[in-house]
């Protein structure tokens, strides 16, 4: 394995949590719901996954608990913004603050503990491909799950009847409602799917990526996932590209720090955030105003009777 291959490998691993969370948020946004609570759901996923995996000594139980935690947080959000038509931006922010605080409470007893390494599952033949084979196909199973999510969601949105309905609900909820589509019910499912994904992304962080839990370990990744949805213009395959770009930025930043580049470490650490802002600006210039955003994104819907 060359150094290049090793770096590619870590890039894919660093991209995976961003990708999983972004795909979940993408589905929720396609249904017209802006959930800014990704960071909080991810934090809860990370801590519950670690706590469960450590307590029951099982990575699988951990992953399930992480997803459950994310899903429950999303259900709370759905109750507020879909059940009671509360403001989505504010409620999402509240969910993030709440999730970061609660995750700290739950995680306090587990600080300093570590989990064993999760075995990689190399895929025969494919993992022997030159250059990219090792990075893409000798990963842990969750990386394959992430790839599967992208393909599955892309297919679901573009090629299935339910996917078309979900998109039409996000595009114009008044028309969709008039056509007899269950706007709120589908939105609830989409939001909870987003929560399960965010929880899974958190579980990946604490169980596979770092293998320990520390306060605020999500470090803005949930927010970057939200930004990724915008970059991707709400298309799953572009979310994959965006996640890899961000994974690359993160990994290169870490390598630069390790190589003692003559730049302050804080500047390097700030680079991904500055890059995100610049990328948002560049995309806006190229695409004009918010092209690709679902028409009803972020607006509450109360069916009249």
């Amino acid at each position, binding site marked *: 394995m060359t150094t290049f291959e090793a770096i590619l490998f870590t890039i894919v691993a660093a991209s995976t949590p961003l990708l999983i969370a972004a795909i979940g948020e993408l589905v929720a946004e396609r249904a017209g719901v802006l959930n*800014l609570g990704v960071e*909080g759901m991810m934090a809860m996923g990370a801590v519950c996954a670690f706590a469960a995996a450590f307590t029951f000594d099982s990575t699988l139980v951990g992953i399930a608990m992480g997803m459950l935690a994310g899903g429950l947080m999303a259900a*709370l959000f759905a109750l*507020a913004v879909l*059940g*009671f*038509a*509360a*403001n989505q*931006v*504010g*409620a999402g*922010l*509240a*969910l*993030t*603050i*709440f*999730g*970061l*605080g*609660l*995750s*700290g*409470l739950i995680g*306090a007893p587990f600080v300093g503990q570590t989990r064993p390494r999760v075995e990689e599952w190399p895929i025969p033949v494919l993992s022997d491909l030159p250059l990219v084979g090792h990075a893409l196909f000798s990963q842990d199973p969750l990386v394959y799950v992430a790839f599967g999510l992208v393909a599955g969601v892309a297919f679901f949105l573009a090629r299935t009847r339910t996917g078309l309905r979900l998109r039409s609900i996000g595009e114009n909820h008044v028309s969709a*409602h008039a056509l*007899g589509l*269950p*706007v*709120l*019910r589908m939105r609830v499912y989409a939001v909870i799917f987003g929560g399960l994904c965010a929880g899974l992304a958190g579980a990946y962080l604490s169980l596979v990526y770092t293998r320990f839990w520390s*306060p605020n370990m999500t470090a*803005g990744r949930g*927010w970057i996932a*939200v*930004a990724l949805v*915008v970059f991707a213009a709400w298309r799953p395959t572009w979310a994959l590209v965006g996640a890899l770009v961000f994974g690359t930025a993160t990994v290169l930043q870490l390598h630069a720090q390790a190589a003692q580049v003559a730049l*302050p470490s*804080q*500047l390097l*650490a*700030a680079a991904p*955030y*500055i890059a*995100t*802002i610049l990328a*948002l*600006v560049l995309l*806006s*210039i190229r695409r*004009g*105003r*918010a092209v690709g955003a679902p028409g009803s994104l972020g607006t*509450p819907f*109360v*069916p009249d*009777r």
Partner: protein
Amino acid sequence: MRIELIPRTDPSPVARALAPLAALVVAFLVAGLVVALMGKSPVSAFEVYILQPLGDPWSLRAMLVKATPLILIAIGLSYCFRAGLWNIGAEGQFVMGGIAGSALALATHGSDPGPWLLPAMMLAGIAGGAAWGAVPAFLKVRFGVSEILTSLFLVYVAELFLDWLARGPWRDPGGFNFPQSVVFESAARLPEIPGLDRVHVGVVFAVIAVVITAVVLGRTLFGYRLKLTGDAPRAARFAGFDARRTTLIVFLISGGLAGLAGIAEVSGQIARVIPDISPGYGFTAITVAFLGRLNPWGILAAGLVLALTFIGGENAQILLRLPFDLTVAFQGLVLLCVLTADALVSYRPRLVRQAGARA
């Protein structure tokens, strides 16, 4: 089973005023449940969090000091939120204000700067915060980039910048390698209010901001324009109000007040530059703004309430070994409850048993 929302034709003003209180009660009940789940007594937690600080003069003064940044920032945010703009990066504007003001304090350290230093520091703080707030506003009006994400990401950048300053160029060479600057000279420190031990005059800034905002919102065309831009952007455009200008102005006000809060905290409370000057005031202030219903007097009251949770949280850390994260979770919960309560003032919820054909 599903919830059906029926619009209230005539939302009661009493309900509107009481909604934040109801939200607080619900948040307290849920927090009590969490405390009970952690195996501690919710009753003694309530006592330590709320009752003890209220009965202790030292805690009450500390509460005033904590309420100062919360109220200043939340007042600024209320301009943005009223105009329908989501500045969620006040934490970064707070930090940049602290940095800009401190730059003056450190540059004049050891010389005899005279009485102009403090006013200059406060103005620098306002300028620093306003400049940081202007970035997302500019990107929004010029390129159409959503202010939500840009303002938030700038928080991380500001925090890392402060971290670098405190550990690098501004570190006190005689400070045994601690990541902190020299202690400010007394000319660079906000004085205490006479008779109120350890309470700096930043409190007065907060009260002034409340009063001015009450006048601006209630009695000026600008206040009306703000409300119209937020409630009915199309109507505001037809009335000839320039949404871009409004966006820039409210972000400058909001950033400026957050910056003032930042330098007031550094100069009046911490008295030196450290890597971490805020326990999340900029985010808590969002809760304060909504708990106060974006009304200046409401924000004044809400700022005191949330300041109390900071003091109570510190007490509970020591007395009950409850982590400070409980306070953060509680603040998020309050925001969620307030927004829900707000919606329920406009809609009457009804539980429908059978799953209907439409939802």
